[in-house]
Every structure is written in C-alpha cells, then in structure tokens.
C-alpha cells in the first residue's frame, strides 16, 4: 500500500497537506479541528507585532456561475497577541505531536527582533519556521513582507539572521510579485535556508462595483490592492514552482512547499510532479472548509496506487525534465485535430473558434461533399497557404444563410422532420469537418469542445526527422519548405 508519509526538509509529515499561513490557521482551536479533519500540518497565521485589520478584507472573482474562481485579501498578519499565539502553538503540539506546526514569522528588519521571535517560536514547540517575505499588501508598506521578498539582498540578510539562531528548519516564503522568482530563491539558499515555499499571493484588484465605482474589497468607499489566490492563480504558481525547482545555478534547489490555487489531489499531484515536497492550501479550505482534505488524501493515495508509486518521493519532480525551453521542442512533431462524429453534439463551437481564433481549417461541409475531401498530408506550417484556400463559406455567410430559412412549428404526427423532433442524433450538416491539410495542430478546437474525447489531436507523420529550433539554427538551415 502506498503511503502519504513523507519527510520535508527534515520534518516528518503524516501527509503532504498543510494549511497555508492564513485565516484557516488563525488560532489553535481551528488548527486542532483541521488536524482532526485530516490535515498533516499547518503554517500558523503569521506572528509578529500585533496589528489592527480593516473591515472588509476579502473579495473574489466569480466565473460563469462558479463562485471564487479567484480570491483576494487585504488582511494583515495575525491580529492576536504574540503570547497567545505561542501559548496555543505549545498546546497544539502537546495534543497533536505527530502533526506539523510551522510558525510563520514577520517582524521588523532588525537582527535582534528576528532572533527574539525565532527563539520564542521554537521554545513554543514549532517544528519549523516560515519567513513571510511575500505578503504583498499593508505589511510591505511598513518595510516587511514582499518589501523584503522583492529585494534578494534583504531576503538573504534576514534569512541569515534567522539561521544564526534557528534550531529548526527555516522555510523562506517567496513572493511572485517580482520579475524573476529565482533571484530571491537563490538568495535564500545563499543565506542557508533549509527550504522555500511558493507562491505567496499576487498583487491584484479583483474588480470594481459598477454602481458605486468602488473597487473591491470596500473599506469605507476605498480599497487597496490585495493578494490574489485561488484556482485562478494555479498556472502562475506551477510555472514559478517549476522555475525555482529547475534552477541549478547555485547547486541543487532547496526543498519546496508548493502553494497557489491547490484545492484537489490532482492539483497537489501536479505541484509534486514539479518538485514540491509538501503543498499548502488556503482558499479551497476557506471556500469549503477543512473537510476537503479527505478527498485530497484519498484521491492522491488512489492515484499513487494506480500509478504504482509507493511514496511521494517516487513521483516528486518527475515532470520537471518534461519542461523545456521552447527552442528545445521538436518542430517536426505534428498533430491534427480529429472530430469524432459519433460524439459530436453539433454546437459548432470548434468551427467558430477555428475561424475567428485560429486557422480557418474547420468547415461545415460534411453534407456537401466535404467528407470526400482527400487528405494529402502536407504540413500547413511549411506550405503557407493563403487563408481559406478552398473558398469555404465564412461563419458570417453560414449565419446569413441560416436566418433565411423558413421554420415552422411541427404539427404532431404529421411533421416528423420538424427541427425539434429528433434530438438524439446530430444531423450530419451540423458536424464540422477538419481540413487536415490546413490544420496546424494548435489544440483550440479540442479545448473549446464541451464533449469529452469528441475532438482528439492525432499524431501524423510528416516524414521529417525530429529537429528543434536550436538544432536547426546550429545546422545553419533556414525555414524548411515542404510540399508546394
């Protein structure tokens, strides 16, 4: 049986699922309930000089009826007294010794102040420390959070102060609000950090109330840029996680705790495949509660069982070698879209997408002889035809024809061919056809198609050996011309 037990930067973990430093880890009572629900660890809501928060604090982006596709906050670090937080850390560790408690720390940029807070957090029993160099709002105006994370020298300086004192592993949390996230990651490593975590939230304005013209979240008619997170940021986070974990400039990368839009076991698996050793979750727990971790544990274990992985380490980082620079991709690999007529429901989203958003190679001519079109196998990337070389009707022409037709309500029992009568079969004329000789293999049609496996991208041979752009340039060759 596979196991989710793992070791991260020397810290034993019963599973890789940690709650990120955020409102779900505000106090001991919450964290103990989270551990009961199945979370393996929690990074305590950042401890530092006590703050006063504003009201309100959160805002979100809904998308197509789904709530909180993206989430934003302008909440500061913990607004509770440090002594209370530390007392509760001690209590949680006493009652949950096998669960991981990481103290997230943020204090003013003075060596003694950092030494003091490190000592107190470790004395309370924290298993490790996370340095919050990422918080993008409020605290950064006071010279903390991302104000530190955005300057590799500050990041290195403070990390080294912490390392002077720390006995437990030190994790540096990286801000994405920087042009190259590898720079602060290298700085952390130079300063002796034991691990990094990424990403913190992204600077954002989630939206504006179109009635009152106030940006959200509203604070007495005004707002302030906040930190963006939730499902919307996952692709950005994955990219940054990969960048840091593929960076060998200063030797092997540090262990990484992955953060950013994780809400399911699939999300977690993707972060781990790009090198993360644990993952941290916030928005999904804020949306649905701690209970979401049950499927994260269950689903990841089941996937590991199906794939034959015994431990997290068995698959950690396995996708990193598959991420390359563009110049190292095989230019001569070719795929062509194939529409499986038996699955097509006739929505024609692929048709309009291909015409307006891609390469005008999907047509509505199956009923007009299009099905008999002969595929010659030429690669349009090398033949460079003018758009629409066969003079097929444009979407506007199709639409204009359609509105001219005269439709009537079918009379029951008489009009068997009424438009709405047999909906179980897609009429042939509604099933689009791909001109395989014009398809560049961009994927767009298969992405917009609502039906699973209805449009597949099929590999076709073009008779050319694999060649990357780098190889082509090195060979001194210009663009290859194939066909006519």
């Amino acid at each position, binding site marked *: 049986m596979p196991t989710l037990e793992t070791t991260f930067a020397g810290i034993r973990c019963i599973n890789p699922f940690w709650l990120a430093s955020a409102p779900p880890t505000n106090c001991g009572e919450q964290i103990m309930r989270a551990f009961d629900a199945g979370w393996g660890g929690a990074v305590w809501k950042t401890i530092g000089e006590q703050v006063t928060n504003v009201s309100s604090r959160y805002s979100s982006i809904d998308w*197509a*009826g789904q709530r909180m596709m993206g989430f934003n906050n302008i909440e500061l670090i913990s607004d509770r007294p440090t002594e209370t937080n530390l007392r509760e850390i001690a209590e949680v560790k006493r009652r949950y010794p096998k669960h991981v408690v990481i103290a997230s720390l943020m204090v003013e940029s003075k060596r003694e102040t950092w030494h003091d807070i490190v000592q107190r957090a470790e004395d309370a029993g924290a298993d490790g420390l996370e340095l919050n160099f990422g918080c993008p709002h409020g605290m950064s105006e006071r010279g903390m959070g991302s104000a530190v994370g955005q300057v590799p020298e500050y990041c290195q300086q403070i990390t080294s102060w912490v390392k002077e004192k720390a006995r437990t592993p030190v994790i540096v949390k990286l801000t994405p609000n920087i042009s190259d996230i590898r720079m602060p990651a290298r700085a952390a490593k130079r300063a002796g950090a034991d691990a990094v975590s990424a990403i913190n939230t992204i600077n954002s304005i989630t939206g504006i109330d179109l009635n009152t013209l106030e940006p959200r979240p509203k604070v007495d008619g005004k707002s302030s840029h906040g930190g963006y997170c939730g499902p919307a940021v996952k692709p950005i986070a994955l990219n940054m996680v990969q960048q840091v974990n593929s960076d060998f400039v200063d030797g092997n990368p540090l262990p990484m705790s992955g953060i950013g839009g994780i809400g399911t076991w699939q999300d977690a698996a993707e972060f781990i495949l790009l090198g993360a050793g644990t993952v941290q979750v916030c928005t999904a727990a804020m949306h649905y509660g701690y209970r979401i971790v049950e499927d994260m544990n269950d689903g990841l274990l089941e996937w590991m069982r199906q794939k034959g992985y015994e431990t997290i380490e068995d698959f950690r980082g396995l996708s990193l070698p598959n991420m390359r620079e563009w110049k190292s991709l095989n230019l001569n690999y070719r795929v062509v879209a194939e529409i499986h007529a038996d699955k097509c*429901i*006739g*929505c*024609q*989203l692929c*048709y*309009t997408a291909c015409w307006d958003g891609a390469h005008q190679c999907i047509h509505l001519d199956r009923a007009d002889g299009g099905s008999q079109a002969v595929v010659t196998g030429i690669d349009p990337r090398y033949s460079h035809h003018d758009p629409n070389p066969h003079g097929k009707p444009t*979407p506007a022409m*199709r*639409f204009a024809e*359609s*509105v001219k*037709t*005269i*439709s*009537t*309500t*079918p*009379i*029951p*029992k008489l009009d068997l061919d*009424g*438009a*709405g*009568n047999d*909906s*179980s*079969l*897609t009429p042939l004329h*509604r099933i689009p056809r791909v001109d395989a000789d014009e398809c560049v293999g961009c994927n767009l049609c298969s992405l917009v198609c*609502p*039906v699973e496996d209805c449009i597949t991208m099929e590999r076709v041979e073009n008779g050319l050996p694999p060649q990357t752009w780098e190889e082509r340039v090195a060979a001194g060759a210009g663009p290859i011309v194939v066909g006519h």
Partner: protein
Amino acid sequence: MSQTNRFQEQSPASPEIVLRFPDLHPAFDKQAAVPEANRCLYCFDAPCMQACPTHIDVPKFIKKIASGNLMGSAKTILDANILGASCSRACPVQVLCEGACVMHRYNKQPIQIGRLQRYAMDALHASGAPLPFAPGEDSGASVALIGGGPASLSCAAELRRRGIRADIYDARPLPGGLNTYGIAEYKLTFEASLREIDMLAQLGVNFHFNTTIDAEKLEELEASHDAVFLGMGLGAIHRLGVAGEQMQGMTNALDFIAGYKSGSITAAPARVAVVGAGNTAIDAANAAVRLGATEVHMIYRRGPEQMSAFDFEYEHAKQEGVKFLFHVAPIGISGSEKVEGLELQKLEASADGSLVPLQGSNVRLPTDMIILAIGQSTHTDFLAAVEDRAEKVKLERGRIVIDRASGQTSNPKYFAGGDCTNGGREVVDAVADGKRAGVGIATWLEGENANA
C-alpha cells in the same frame, strides 16, 4: 400611464381565475436564471435559433442574461419577435427551441430557453422602459391589417419601424386575437397579452375594434390604403352535425376559453365532455377541471397515437385528471332543454384504415356540458369569388395561398400570414409570418414607388 397601459387596464383580472390558473412554468428569479443562462454552450448558428420560426438569436439573448444586460437581452428577443413575451410563455418549446437544444445529446436536459426568454421580457416590462425601437420616419404609405392577432401585430410592428402607417381592424373589443382570448391562462394570461400589445402600440399602431370586415368594407380599405394584410385567423369551430346542438350546455372550446379568460365564465359544471383531441381541446378540458368540474372526459375517434395534441399536452391533461375515451364517436345529444348526456358509438379500424362503427356498442356518457373542439373552419368567404365578384386572392381549401418568404398573395396588393394561411399553427408561426410580410410589404411598396 393610462395611455401606455390602456389595454392592460381593461383586463378583467379576476382573483378567482388568477387563483385557479397559476403559472404552469413559474418565472425564474435571478438565482435560477443566471446559472441556467451560464449552462448554455453558446452554439454557433444555434439549432434553437434555427428551430424558432422567428429565428430569435437565442444564445445571444441568453449570454446577455448571464452578463446582467437584461435590457439588451430583451431587445435581442424583440428584434426578432415583437411578441417575445407571449411566445416565451405560449410556445410549445419542447418541439421548437428546447427540442432542438444540443444539450439533449450532452448532459440531457435542454436549456430552459422559454423561461429565460420570459425572464428577460419580464425585466423589460418591470423596468417601465419603453419598447427599444422607434417608429421610422413617416413614409406616407399606409397598410390596413385585417385581424388583430399575432400575425397582424407582428406585421404592424415591422411596418411602423419602417415609417409605414398601420391600421388594425379587429372584430373584438380588445386586441391580440387568440393570443389574448385563446391561450390557456396558466401559460399566458389575458393581462400579459394586453400588456405586451400596450408596448407594441408605442410604435404608433392604429387600432379599430368591434369592426368586422366584409367584402364591401374590404373594398374601402383597399382603396384607402397602399396594401392590405390579411391576418384574421380561422373561423368558427365545426359543429357535430347531430340533433340538439342548440341546447343549453353546448359550447365550443374557443368560446369556452375566451369566456373564462375575459371573465364571463367563472365556473364549470360537475361533468364536462370535450369532443376532440387537439391542443385546443386539451386546453379546454384542463380549464374545465380548474373551473370546478369533477369529471372531465375527452372524446376522440382514434387512439392516443393519432392525437393531434403534442405528447406533453396529453401528459399534462392526464396529470390534471382529465379522462380519455378513445375510439368513440358522438352520435347524439340527450336532454330536453339542457344537455344531459352524450351518446357515443364505438369505432374500430377497418382493413383500409378507415373507422367503422361497431354495431350495438352505443353508450351514453352523462354530462352537463359538451365542449366541441373538432377543428376550425376557415374565415375567407369575404375573399372568395361570388356571382358578380372575382376571387380577391387565391385560396386553397379556404386557406390563403402566399409566397412564404414575402407573405404576398396572388393579388400583389394583398399580403397574408398566420392561421388563415397555414390552417392553424402556433403564435410564433403567426409572428414569423407577420414579420416576413411586413418586410415583404415594405419591399413591394419601395418597388412600386420606384416604378411610379
């Protein structure tokens, strides 16, 4: 407001009828409408739009509901169908837009297009905003429209948007024809139909009520207008042709429905028999149930497979508690002054498919009321040839023959649409006919002017 709501204010709005005929498909609220709108795939050249006789751009108006642009959504609907509010309630969407929805082949439940359309139209009406179209600049031309039903209303709107004067002549005291007087109240209320016509009237349509057009009057209108649109629908419901049809308790489905909708009928007797099995027959039977009848039978010569009602209407009637007597034909009415029963004879199919009476099978169905719903006759006598008068327009089995694309009849100055041309279809078909004819008339008038 009295001017803008002048028709709606004349609605009887009986609280009893409101109570007995609640919405069959209740209105969406925002929490239901927006997720439903978001479910729409936004098909290209959508099958729902193709299936709609008026070609409402359904994905376009649905996406506007999703984005919160309800006024734009209503305008999209009205641009294609000036009676978009009535149609959203009265259309048999199962065999039109919703029947064509690709969702049948996806996750099976079609988008609830009718209810979404009503949501957008209700929002426009609730806003108090005027119709989002203005009449065109006066062209000097004028058209007489015979009948004030959906075909004429739709035609008139097209004409007004092109600056052509529109004079509607209707035999009833209020406009809308069957849209106002003939649609089951739980689908489209009398009041909702009038409210929509109040909106349409903002385009400057002239209504002439309580006016019956005969051959003589038609000559006058032809002489005083540049074109004539014939949209008078069908005529009276056929009679059974048996003795006793004058007795008290005998009625027909159209009179019965118009009666309860306009407030003159408020109750049905305990036992009602409806003869016929079309959609109108079902509307009458369901109405009888809701008006208090405890035993409602439908009498049909053939079986359920041959019924001309839509399947969903048959199912609905069964749910209302209507009982069906198949393979029987009425052969007589019993009673003295008042209907007491309907004499029925069983029928069976012969080898050639025709129905033959089964001898000795007569039964008597005790009943207090008989509602006939066995099809309507045509109402085109005033157009037909008589001794000293030539045929005004070409007729075929009493129906006016038109060019489907333009609505033009054999007489170039005459256009027609709706039930008087198609033998009786849906409101939306009449609206589509009227729209095409409106465009057809304007195009023809332009040609006439160019030649003049």
